[in-house]
C-alpha cells in the first residue's frame, strides 16, 4: 500500500478519515425493490495523497473490510443494527471478496478549482481505468466517481430470486478538508 504523503509540500495533502469522508451509495432495482434499501456506506479505513505539484497525482488505498452501513432508505422496513451487520457481512463474503482497494491517477488536468482525473482502480482483484472530476473549491476536496461493478468483474448483488438487485453502477464520493495554503507557513 502506498504511504500517504507527510504533507510537507504546500501542494501536497494527506487525507484520511481524520479529515474527510469516503462514501459509497448503492441503489436498488427490480420487481421486488420495495423489499430492499438504497444504501449509504462509509469507508472507515482509508488513506490518500493529493499532490497538486508538477509531477503530482492522487493515490488512495482503502480497506475493503472497513465498509459500514450508515443508512438504508426507501425500504418497506427499517434497517436495524442486525440488518446493517448482515449487509456488511454480505459485502465481505459476496462482493469485495479479494484484494485491496487501490486507486492511482495516471493524469490530472486542473481548470480553476476543477480537477479532471484519470487513473486506474483496483477492486476485487481486478484493475480497470476510471475517470472523474474533483473540486478543490473552499479548501475542500469534493467529488464523486461512478463505479460500474461489472467492469471489475463484480456481479451486482441480487436477492429474492433476482427480483431485488443492486444497480450495476454505484457512486463513490469523497469530501475532505484541505489545509489552507497558509497553514503550511
Amino acid at each position, binding site marked *: 500500500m502506498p504511504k500517504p504523503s507527510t504533507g510537507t509540500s504546500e501542494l501536497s495533502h494527506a487525507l484520511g478519515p481524520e479529515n474527510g469522508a469516503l462514501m459509497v451509495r448503492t441503489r*436498488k432495482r427490480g*420487481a*421486488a425493490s*420495495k*423489499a*430492499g*434499501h438504497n444504501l449509504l456506506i462509509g469507508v472507515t479505513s482509508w488513506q490518500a495523497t493529493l499532490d497538486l505539484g508538477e509531477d503530482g497525482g492522487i493515490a488512495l488505498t482503502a480497506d475493503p473490510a472497513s465498509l459500514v452501513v450508515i443508512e*438504508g432508505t426507501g425500504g*418497506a*422496513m427499517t*434497517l436495524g443494527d442486525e*440488518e*446493517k451487520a*448482515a*449487509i456488511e457481512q*454480505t459485502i465481505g463474503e459476496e462482493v469485495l471478496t479479494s484484494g485491496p482497494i487501490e486507486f492511482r491517477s495516471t493524469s490530472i488536468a486542473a481548470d480553476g478549482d476543477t480537477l479532471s482525473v484519470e487513473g486506474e482502480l483496483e477492486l476485487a482483484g481486478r484493475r480497470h481505468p476510471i475517470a472523474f472530476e474533483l473540486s478543490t473549491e473552499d479548501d475542500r476536496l469534493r467529488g464523486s466517481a461512478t463505479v460500474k461493478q461489472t467492469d471489475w468483474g463484480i456481479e451486482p*448483488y441480487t*436477492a*429474492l*430470486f*433476482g*427480483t*431485488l438487485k443492486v444497480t450495476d453502477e454505484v457512486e463513490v464520493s469523497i469530501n475532505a478538508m484541505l489545509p489552507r495554503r497558509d497553514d503550511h507557513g
Partner: protein
Amino acid sequence: MVELDHSFSNGKPADYNWEAILDLDRLIPCVEGGKVIERTSPTEARAEIKVKMGAMSLTFAGTVAVIEQDADAHRAVLQVKSKEVGGQGLANADVTFALSDGGGTIHTAAQISGKAASMGEGVMVNVLDALVDDFTKKLAAV
C-alpha cells in the same frame, strides 16, 4: 390466493420426470434455499426454505406432501404447508404437475401471509413467479 402457471422442458421422457418430481429428496432442493429436514414417508417430508430478502432473510418450515398422483396421466399434486420460523407468517401452496414427454406444466396456487406478504401482492407475485421459474430451470436439469 396467488395462482401461477409455468412450464419446463428438458427433453426427457415423462416417466423419467415423473420419478423426479415424486422423489422429494431430489425435488425439494430444486427450490432455491430449500432443504429436506426429514423424510417422514415415501410421499411426505419435513422441509424448510430460507428466503434471502437482501439484508433480511425469512425461513419457512413445514411439510411437503404428495396428496394426489395419477401415474397414467403423469399428474400429481404436492401440498406445501409452512410457517415462518420465529414469526407469524404462513406460506402454503398446492403445486400441480402435469408431465408429458419432454417436460411439463406446473400450476401453483399459493397463500402467503405475514412479513413476506407485507410488500404487497404485486411484489409477492413477482417473487413467487421468479421462485417457480428458477425451480423449473433446476428441475429441468435434474
